[in-house]
């Protein structure tokens, strides 16, 4: 028998009786006894994607992490549309959103540098527009998200119930003021929709061109989207108008029963204020909830099927 540490190792004990271990050791055991710096390759540990709390709320990643192929005609059109609506929105935001009442206005005023508040305000609008432009053109969702946040942040301000605008020459007429607000809101929503559609259609286009999905009659599908983009904001604007002009519509119905009470309602500060809008929202959405409760969409569908 060779001495320990010298010459060939004696392995005869491996063949004696039942002490022979006849299989290779478990890989798991081997892994468990290895030191941390033993050079286990990274891919030996499976990658587990743990969603963060935002992903958990929305059921998946909020931002699309995918490379797109160069934009096709549809995507280019959408990009143009998004940039157009962004420019209008930027201008409307500048017109309708005064710096007074904002947090930065209050802080700069306290510090005695009130003019800086205005600059911060303008800078935020500029950030919203520029990052939106960049996001749409580069199809970068992070920049788009920054744009949404900036454009919404500038509207958050302490305000009285009375509508105030950023530019003093804008009309004082309540109807025009409310219509301008609706126009602003519609453009904000349209911008958000078209810019997200840029990403959506880029994904679709990439999937088509990489053969993941086959689209039959692409034109009819894009035409449907274009039509929806036309009438959905219009419908939203109508519903918003009904809601915002509740101080006109409620007295209209009340007048049938009691003209004096209707006059009082028209003059009511509460009904013309933001709480009137809240009341209008409740009334309009009660009607919509009732439509869903009786499953009206399906009934309309069934009716249309029968007619067809």
């Amino acid at each position, binding site marked *: 028998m060779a001495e320990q540490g010298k010459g060939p190792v004696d392995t005869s004990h491996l063949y004696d009786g039942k002490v022979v271990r006849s299989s290779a050791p478990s890989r798991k055991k081997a892994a468990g006894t290895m030191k941390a710096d033993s050079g286990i390759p990274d891919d030996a540990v499976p990658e587990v994607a743990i969603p963060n709390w935002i992903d958990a709320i929305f059921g998946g990643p909020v931002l699309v992490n995918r490379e797109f192929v160069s934009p096709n005609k549809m995507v280019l059109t959408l990009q143009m549309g998004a940039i157009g609506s962004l420019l209008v929105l930027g201008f409307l935001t500048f017109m309708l959103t005064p710096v007074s009442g904002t947090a930065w206005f209050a802080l700069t005023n306290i510090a005695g540098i009130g003019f800086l508040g205005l600059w911060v305000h303008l800078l935020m609008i500029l950030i919203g527009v520029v990052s939106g432009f960049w996001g749409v053109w580069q199809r970068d969702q992070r920049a788009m998200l920054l744009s949404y946040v900036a454009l919404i942040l500038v509207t958050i301000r302490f305000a009285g119930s009375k509508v105030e605008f950023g530019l003093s020459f804008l009309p004082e007429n309540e109807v025009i003021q409310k219509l301008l607000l609706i126009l602003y809101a519609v453009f904000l929503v349209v911008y958000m929709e078209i810019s997200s559609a840029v990403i959506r259609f880029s994904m679709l286009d990439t999937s088509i061109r990489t053969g993941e999905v086959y689209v*039959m009659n692409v034109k009819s599908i894009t035409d449907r989207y274009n039509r929806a983009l036309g009438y*959905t904001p219009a419908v939203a604007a109508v519903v918003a108008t009904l809601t915002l002009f509740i101080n006109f519509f409620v007295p209209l119905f009340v007048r049938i029963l009691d003209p004096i009470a209707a006059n009082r309602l028209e003059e009511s500060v509460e009904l013309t204020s933001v709480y009137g809008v809240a009341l209008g929202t409740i009334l309009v959405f009660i009607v919509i909830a009732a439509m*869903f409760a009786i499953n009206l969409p399906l009934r309309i569908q069934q009716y249309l099927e029968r007619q067809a």
Partner: protein
Amino acid sequence: MAWSRKSAMFASLSVAMYLLGLVLRNQQLVTVAVVLLSFLTWAALRTAHGDVASSGRRVEEAVMDEGVELQSIVAMRKTSTSRVFEDGEIDVTLRIQNRSGMAKVLELRDRVPEVMRIKKGANYVLMEIGPKRETEISYTIETPLRGFYTIGPVCIRVQDELGLFHNEKEVQLYDDFLVFPKMEDIKDAMIKSRVPKIFTGAVNIRNPGEGSNFYNLREYLPGDPMRKINWKATARQDGKMMVNEFERDAVSDVIILVDSRSVSETGPVSRNSLVYSTRAAASLTQHFLSRRDSVGLVVYGDEIVSVDRDTGKKQLYVILTKLAGAMAKGNTPLKIVTTRIMPHIHRGSPIIILSPLEDDPTIVDAVRDLRARNFEVTILSPSSLEFEFDARRIDRTGYEVLKTERDILMTELRGLGAYVMDWEPDMLLFTALAGARGF
């Protein structure tokens, strides 16, 4: 109706803006919130029109010619074959009918097993289908891995144009198919039994018996039939009666043992011990059956599944089906398998073991028992170490240590008289078998 992430974000944003607007008494915020809510509500109303409200039926319950109907959408599928070998192709044709009087925009995905590859066409289609119209989708799938698979169900999604809400249902239309392990030609790597069976057959075994080929001369023994006496030889042997002996025609009993314990799936999905073992078993089965030998199969994992010895083409498909369904599960030791099957096998029959030789302390005992009973044991061992090392799942040091232990085990098995071959991933089955037989 399901919400998309976009609609969820729009909804949460609008609610937050609405509440904030009320708190801050800011009409601008409230107006934006109301427009957003109205936008969402209208899209929801439009999506609710999507006509997919039923869950459909399994195809067996439906009338085949009519397909499976999901309200007014009917799906019918045809596949070119239901049995295919690995790396084969299946053509799938899916017919979609819109039986309603209204056009529908559908997103349709015919679900194929994850391991399959779409070679031609697409199983994911976005389309507008007109009223009372039908359309056909064709695609070809490649079948890289053996197993039992199902195509289906057909997932249909109706979405609003703005991508805010969707209705998603499944048409329960299924087509099953079977992928057999692929086979390699190994006709020159022969393994033959020395012990005959009573049945006559194709493989001549060099032992005397009731056959047709001359084998030897011997002295007459009482009881030998008169017609076997070789008179010329008798005359030459000075009166000693000599009789002709004939080579006994017989069929070999070849038993193939496939290790399908969970350890046999160590390595990548398409390159592991079980995949190689099943392919080898299929090739060996085809080879022996083509020689009109009798082949039996034992697959052991969490249970012992066996196919009794038989000959013919039918047996080939019986064995291929069992191999296709072999799953890496459990940890049944080889000793238990051999103890159970030994009484049923003719002594001396060749036994081919296809195993990674891992995590089984009974291998040596099992092979020793088989050899003690004069079974001819051939072990083909696809090395899972190589698979893992190639896939960079173990480092060089670990590989060397485990490789040394594996070599020691193989040497020990060779010492017991078994033909053992360490089957490396890039080696052809023929080469591995030749190595195992010492050719």
